[in-house]
């Protein structure tokens, strides 16, 4: 287990807010940062996923041989894919169970699930191909695509980080110019988060995480200037979100996707705002940690186990929606939903680290008794970083 740190902390923050934002109409939604922020936790989550990729590909000692690197990254993609299939099946079962228990077949429509029940033959193929995604279960499919592309990203970065940036930017611009996105099937439509556009925020996270080269080195050299530059973006994005302003898609000039605040295609305004947020708040952890140590420990624990926490959070959000359906949306129901959720996410993180803790305790050289301060064992830390 790693000591609580900034990356894990913000990852935990993204996970906790994703959980809340995925229960539409919940009272506590108004306290999440997306009310004062043009971009939301999805951008932060993907950015930090890219950041974590940096830890996997760069060994401080000797560089990992390319073949081993590819194997490792493809392995990660498979794990994330398996997680997506697992939570999707759990969600389908939860929806079906709720429909039966409450005798409310309308529930079967929720979350894009109806096709599973109504057109099972085609939809099962779609589920396996990730071309059928349940509503709110659309971040991991993006992550699978990004991790599948990660070997190419990592190897291109080895050749030249600037080349990687140019390639990623070109793909992004091309996707936005033509409105290119992966199709969904059998339900006619498009991916909720377009991998061709969203890869850029992932690659930016990966590049900026490098301390000594490329964009990362540049960002660190000009840190103060960039921070000042970020302020108007953060304030502008905050005001836009607060006043519910977004450019009228019919009024903006062509190519329209460049000027809208579109989430599917990660329009430049959202991307710039997300990066500006990172620029402004990076380093903020050193103020939060001493002021609110339990919060820092809690969110870092979520962030360390982000795949597990994300999976449990996704299913819990759905359970929260069903609870609100049955008991009505009120502050009491919502408070119960939030408390159960926050505790369950914490338990998920804690249980996920059980084995690590046992190993640390039974190892030949017992570690100090306070687990969070144990310095990170290289292998398990690397495994945890990528989740």
């Amino acid at each position: 287990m790693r000591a609580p740190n900034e990356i894990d902390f913000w990852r935990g923050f993204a996970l906790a807010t994703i959980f809340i934002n995925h229960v539409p109409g919940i009272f506590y939604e108004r306290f999440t940062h997306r009310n004062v922020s043009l971009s939301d936790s999805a951008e932060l989550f993907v950015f930090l996923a890219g950041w974590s990729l940096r830890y996997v590909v760069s060994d401080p000692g000797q560089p990992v041989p390319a073949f081993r690197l590819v194997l490792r990254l493809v392995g990660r993609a498979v794990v994330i894919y398996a997680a997506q299939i697992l939570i999707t099946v759990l969600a389908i079962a939860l929806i079906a169970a709720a429909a039966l228990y409450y005798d409310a077949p309308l529930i079967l429509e929720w979350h894009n699930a109806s096709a599973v029940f109504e057109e099972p033959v085609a939809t099962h193929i779609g589920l396996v191909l990730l071309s059928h995604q349940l509503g709110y279960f659309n971040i991991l499919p993006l992550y699978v695509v990004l991790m599948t592309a990660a070997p190419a990203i990592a190897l291109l970065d080895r050749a030249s980080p600037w080349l990687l940036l140019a390639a990623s930017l070109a793909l992004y611009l091309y996707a936005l110019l033509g409105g290119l996105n992966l199709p969904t099937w059998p339900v006619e439509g498009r991916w909720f988060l377009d991998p061709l556009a969203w890869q850029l925020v992932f690659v930016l996270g990966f590049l900026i995480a490098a301390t000594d080269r490329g964009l990362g080195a540049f960002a660190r050299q000009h840190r103060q200037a960039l921070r000042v530059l970020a302020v108007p973006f953060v304030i502008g994005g905050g005001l836009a979100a607060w006043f519910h302003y977004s450019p009228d898609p019919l009024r903006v000039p062509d190519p329209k996707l460049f000027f809208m605040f579109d989430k599917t295609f990660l329009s430049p305004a959202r991307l710039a705002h997300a990066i500006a947020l990172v620029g402004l708040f990076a380093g903020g952890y050193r103020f939060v940690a001493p002021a609110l140590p339990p919060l820092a420990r809690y969110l870092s624990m979520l962030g360390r186990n982000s795949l597990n926490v994300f999976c449990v959070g996704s299913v819990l959000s759905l359970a929260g929606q069903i609870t609100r359906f049955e008991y009505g949306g009120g502050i009491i129901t919502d408070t119960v939903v939030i408390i159960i959720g926050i505790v369950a996410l914490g338990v998920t993180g804690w249980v996920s680290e059980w084995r690590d803790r046992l190993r640390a305790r039974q190892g030949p050289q017992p570690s100090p008794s306070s687990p969070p301060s144990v310095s990170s064992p290289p292998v398990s830390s690397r495994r945890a970083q990528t989740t």
Partner: protein
Amino acid sequence: MPSSSIAAPAPLPNVTATLETRKTIRVLAIGSSSTYGVGASSGSKNYPAQLTDILERALKGINIEIINRGVSGEVAKTTAERLRVEVALTHPDLVLWQLGTNDALARVPVEEFEDTVTSTIQWLKENKIDVVLVGLQYTARFARDDNYAAIRDALRRIAAQQNILYVRRFEAMRYISSVRNAPIVANDDLHLNDLGYHCMAEHIAHAVIANLFVRRFRPPTN
């Protein structure tokens, strides 16, 4: 079937005007579940596809182009955001928006729902795009649900205030299920099967055609 109690008649000024200059109208079908034809025997039988058939048969020489963007289980707020983007990218003359069911299930506050829908309709009107609202489904269980009724009332109110066409699917389905032996809902007792879809498409087509004829035979006096 008493159509006056099922589809509140209201003008479709932009589609009518478009048809006087051009022979193609483009329709964006957006909203939850039934838009893409869950419970229908094949993809070609969803209500937008059936609507195309009926309109093209009734109005010879007119070409209807349908763009389907249905996602099941989406609340109106999510659809509203998607709708603006899709409208900008596809330039429809008419938007068919199926909504309400999932907001009622998710217990979205009615005022919030009303705000979302009203502002989206106003935006469409400002941009000279007609809209048809397609309301909630009828199920015996939800006939007694307060929240469900509140969302239904909100839709009726919005349609009246904004003077737009609103397909009262709840009333239509309740009526059909009370007078017909043929099962109109698929085996989960909920989704419209092909017959149900056909009824719905007919309602919309009926309204479109009626509007065209009103325009044609009753010259505008004001």
